[in-house]
C-alpha cells in the first residue's frame, strides 16, 4: 500500500515528493558542549542516505533525535512532510522510523521469531507459526535469509544485525536508520547489507546509514550529508560528489587553520619549548630516533571478545624517548592495538614484546582502571596487585598516594576517600599519576586528556613530554587529531585493522583515517 501511495504522491506533487524524514536546523547542547548547532538532513523516499562525519561531529546525536531518544533544543523534525515532536523511540516507531544501533538488543535465549514478536508488541496469545511466517515474509520483502527458529544468542554478528532490521520492519518502519552498520561486518557481508538496503529503499522507503567510510558513502548511497562539528557542511547526490569534496567537508577547507584558536599544545609551549611546540616535539623525535626499541610488535593479529578480527597484521616498534601517536576512527582497531601494546591483550597471531613495567591508561577508566568503592590508596595499590607478594604495606602506600595527590594536583579529602567520591577529572588524574609512578619503561594512554580542563590538559602534556625526555616510550591515542599532531614524534593511523605511518599533517592523517588514499 505504502508503495502505491508514495508513487501516487510523487505524481501529483510534481517531481519532488516531500522527504520521508527531514531534520531542519537541529541544535542540541549537552551541558556546556554544543553537540549540534545547525544540522539538517533530508532523506528522500526511494534513497539510501549516508551521514558522514568525524568522531564527535554529531552524527549519532542527530540520528538519536530522529529516533526520539533525544529531544532537540531547536529545529524541526518533519516526517512525511508534517512536523512531528517525537517523545520516545516508541513514538518514532509509530511514525515509521526504526533504528539499528551499534549494540544489538535481542534477547539471546529467545528465537528469532520470538524476538520479532516481542519487538512488534504481540498481544494476547503468542502464535509461533504466525510469528515464523511473519519473519519469513519480512525477510523476503528485503531479500535476505534469516532462520526464524534460530536462537538469537547463536547468531553471528551479521545475522544479529539482520534480526535487528527485521525487528524494525515488523514495526512498519519506512525509514531505517543504521549506526555504523558495516563496522562489524566482513566485506562480503557488508556488500550484502548495502544491497539489501537498496532493495528496501526501492520500495519507496528510505535508509540512513551513519558511516566513516567515504567509499561506502559514494558507492552505496544515493545522497550524502556531511556533518562537521554539529553543522551540516555538505548535502549532495553521491553521483555528483567525490572523495576530495567529502574529505574537505568533513575536515574543513583549511585543515588546521579552522582549529587554530584552540590551545592544544599550550602546556608544551608554557614550558619554554619555543613558540612552535609541535615543531619542537617533532625535532626531538627525530633526534631520538636511535633510542632502544621498547615495544616490538610483528604481524600482530588481534581478535576481540566477540570473535571479530580487529587488527589484521600490524608491525610496529616503539622506541625509548619517543611519543608515538595513534589515530583512527572508532572501531578501526586502535583500541585493541593499544591494549596489546600495553600487555593487556594476548595476540592471536604474531610476535609481541613489551617491557615488564608498563603503564596503561585505558579509555574506560571507570570500568578498567579504578575500583569505585576502594580508597584512593587501595586504587594506587591496585597497579601491580597481580605480582604483589606477602603483606600490603598500607602505611607506605598511603604515603605514596598522598605524594601523588599533591604532585598531580588531585582534589580529594584524603588518601582514604573512596575513588567514587572524586570528580571525573580527578579520578582521571589519579589514574595517570598511578600509571606514571615508578618510572615505567613505557606508557600506553588512550584519550588521556578526555574530560580534563585546559589547565589539567596542559599539565598532562607537560608530564608526557617530561616522561619522554626521561627516556620513556609512549604510545598515545587521542580522538583529537590536533592534540595528536602537537604531541607526537611519529604518527600512525589505524584503518580497518591495518596500520600506516603518515606525516605529522592533519590532512594526510585525516585522509588515512577515512581510508582515502
Amino acid at each position, binding site marked *: 500500500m505504502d508503495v502505491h501511495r508514495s508513487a501516487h504522491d510523487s505524481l501529483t506533487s510534481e517531481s519532488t515528493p516531500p522527504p520521508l524524514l527531514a531534520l531542519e536546523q537541529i541544535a542540541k547542547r549537552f551541558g556546556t558542549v554544543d553537540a549540534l548547532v545547525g544540522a539538517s538532513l533530508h532523506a528522500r523516499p526511494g534513497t539510501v542516505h549516508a551521514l558522514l562525519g568525524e568522531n564527535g561531529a554529531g552524527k549519532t546525536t542527530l540520528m538519536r533525535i530522529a529516533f526520539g531518544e533525544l529531544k532537540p533544543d531547536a529545529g524541526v523534525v518533519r516526517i512525511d512532510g508534517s512536523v512531528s515532536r517525537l517523545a520516545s523511540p516508541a513514538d518514532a516507531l509509530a511514525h515509521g522510523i526504526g533504528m539499528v544501533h551499534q549494540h544489538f538488543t535481542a534477547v539471546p535465549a529467545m528465537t528469532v521469531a520470538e524476538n520479532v514478536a516481542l519487538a512488534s508488541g504481540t498481544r494476547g496469545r503468542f502464535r509461533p507459526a504466525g510469528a515464523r511466517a511473519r519473519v519469513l515474509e519480512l525477510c523476503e520483502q528485503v531479500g535476505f535469509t534469516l532462520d526464524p527458529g534460530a536462537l538469537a544468542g547463536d547468531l553471528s554478528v551479521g545475522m544479529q544485525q539482520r534480526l535487528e532490521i527485521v525487528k524494525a520492519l515488523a514495526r512498519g518502519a519506512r525509514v531505517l536508520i543504521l549506526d555504523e552498520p558495516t563496522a562489524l561486518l566482513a566485506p562480503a557481508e557488508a556488500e550484502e547489507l548495502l544491497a539489501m538496503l537498496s532493495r528496501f529503499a526501492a520500495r519507496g522507503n528510505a535508509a540512513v546509514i551513519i558511516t566513516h567510510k567515504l567509499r561506502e558513502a559514494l558507492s552505496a548511497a544515493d545522497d550524502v550529508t556531511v556533518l562537521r562539528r554539529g553543522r551540516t557542511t555538505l548535502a549532495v547526490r553521491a553521483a555528483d560528489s567525490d572523495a576530495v569534496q567529502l574529505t574537505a567537508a568533513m575536515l574543513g577547507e583549511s585543515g588546521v587553520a579552522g582549529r587554530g584558536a584552540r590551545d592544544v599544545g599550550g602546556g608544551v609551549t608554557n614550558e619554554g619549548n619555543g613558540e612552535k611546540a609541535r615543531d619542537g616535539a617533532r625535532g626531538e623525535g627525530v633526534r631520538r630516533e636511535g633510542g632502544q626499541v621498547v615495544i616490538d610488535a610483528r604481524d600482530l593479529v588481534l581478535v576481540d571478545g566477540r570473535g571479530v578480527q580487529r587488527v589484521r597484521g600490524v608491525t610496529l616498534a616503539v622506541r625509548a624517548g619517543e611519543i608515538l601517536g595513534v589515530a583512527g576512527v572508532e572501531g578501526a582497531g586502535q583500541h585493541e592495538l593499544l591494549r596489546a601494546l600495553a*600487555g*593487556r591483550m594476548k595476540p592471536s597471531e604474531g610476535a609481541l614484546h613489551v617491557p615488564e613495567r608498563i603503564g*596503561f591508561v*585505558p579509555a574506560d577508566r571507570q*570500568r*578498567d*582502571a*579504578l*575500583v*569505585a*568503592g*576502594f*580508597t584512593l*590508596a*587501595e586504587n594506587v*595499590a*591496585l*597497579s*601491580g*596487585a*597481580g*605480582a*604483589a*607478594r*606477602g*603483606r*600490603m604495606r*598500607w602505611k607506605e602506600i598511603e604515603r605514596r598516594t598522598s605524594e601523588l595527590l599533591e604532585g598531580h594536583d588531585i582534589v580529594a579529602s584524603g588518601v*582514604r*576517600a*573512596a575513588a567514587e567520591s572524586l570528580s571525573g577529572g580527578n579520578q582521571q588524574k589519579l*589514574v595517570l599519576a*598511578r600509571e606514571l609512578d615508578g618510572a615505567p619503561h613505557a606508557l600506553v594512554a588512550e584519550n588521556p586528556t578526555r574530560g580534563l580542563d585546559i589547565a589539567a590538559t596542559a599539565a598532562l602534556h607537560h608530564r608526557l613530554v617530561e616522561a619522554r625526555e626521561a627516556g620513556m616510550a609512549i604510545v598515545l591515542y587521542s580522538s583529537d587529531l590536533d592534540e595528536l599532531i602537537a604531541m607526537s614524534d611519529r604518527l600512525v593511523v589505524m584503518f580497518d585493522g591495518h596500520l600506516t605511518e603518515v606525516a605529522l599533517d592533519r590532512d594526510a592523517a585525516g585522509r588515512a583515517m577515512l581510508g582515502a588514499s
Partner: protein
Amino acid sequence: MSARRASWLREPATVAAIAALALAALWLALRLAGLDATRAMLALWDGSFGSSYALVSSTLVRATPLILTGLAVAIAFRAGVWNIGAEGQLLAGAATAAALGLFASPALGPFTVVAALAVGALAGAFWAWIAAYLRNRFGVLEVISTIMLNFVALYAVGYLVRGPLQEPTHIYPQSEPLPAVAELPKLIAGSRLHWGFALAVLAAPVAWWVLRNTAAGFRVRAVGRNPDAARVAGLVNVERTTMRVFLVSGALAGLAGAIELTGVTFALYENVSPGYGYTAIAVALLAGLDPLGVLATGLLFGALEAGSLAMQREAAVPSVVVNVVEALLVLLILGVARWRGGSAILSRLAGVGSGSTEAAR
C-alpha cells in the same frame, strides 16, 4: 582499609532494633497462632543464653559450624564467587573425616583427629574445586553447580551410611561411632564445647587480617569489586584468584564438617548437618561479608538454633519457626540498608554482583 566497613557493625543500635523487631514479629506470630508466645520466648532465651550450660554446650557448639561456613561464604562472596555450596562441602568434609577416623585410627593413633580435620578440609576444597573448574573451563554458573553438588554430597553420604561406612549390624543408616582417638578434645571439661570452637573463633580474625593486609587478600577484594579493573590495571589473574578463593572457601566448609563429626556427632549419618551450609549464607550476608561480623552473626544464629530446640521442648513450638526469624532478620537488614541508602552491605553486594556477571561472560 576498605572505604566503608560493614556499616551495621558500627551501628549496634540499628542491629539491636532490627533483632528486637524480628523477635517481636515472632512473638506476634506465635500469639496469632494461639500458642503461649511469652513462654516460648522465654524458652528461646533459656535455651540460648539463659544458663552457662545453655550458652557453652548449646549456643557455642551450634555457632561453631555456622562461623566456619559463614566465613567460607563471606570470603567467596567478597571475591564475587557465589559459592552456595557450603552445605555440600561441609558434608564432603564430614564424610571424609568419618572414613579416616574409622579406618586409619589404628595407624595414626593420637594424630587421627588432626588428620581427620586435614582431610576434611581437603575434601571440602575438592568439592568446591569441581564447581570452580566448571566455571573457569566451561563458564558454568557456580550458583547452579554448587547447589547441585550439595545434593550430590547429600546422596553420596546417604549411600555411604548404607554401604561402605554402615555400622556392622547393618540396621541403622549410620556409621559406627568414631574411636576415642578420633574425637576432638573438649575445650571446657564436662561440657560439650570442643576445640573446634577455638579454631572457628581464631579463623575469623585471621581471615579478616588476610583480606585486609596481604597481597592475596587485596586481590580477592579487588576481583570481587571490579574484575575488569583488577585484570587491566592490576594485571591480576582473575581466574586463578577465583579458583584459590573457591578452594579456601571449600576448605573452611569442609573443616566445619570434619569438626562437627569429630566434635559433636562422632558418627556419620544423613542429617549430620541441619543445613548449616545454607544458614551460613544468611550469617555471611547479615555480617556484611565481614569476617569479624561473621563471628557475631554466627553466634546470634547459633543462639537462635539452640534456643529453638528449647522452645520446641518446653513450649511445643516447632523449632522451624526460628528459620522464619532468621529470614526476617536478613530481609529487615537489607531493607533498612536500602531505605537508608548507600549501605556498605548493599553496595558491596551490588559491586560483587555486577562483577560476577562480568566474569561469567
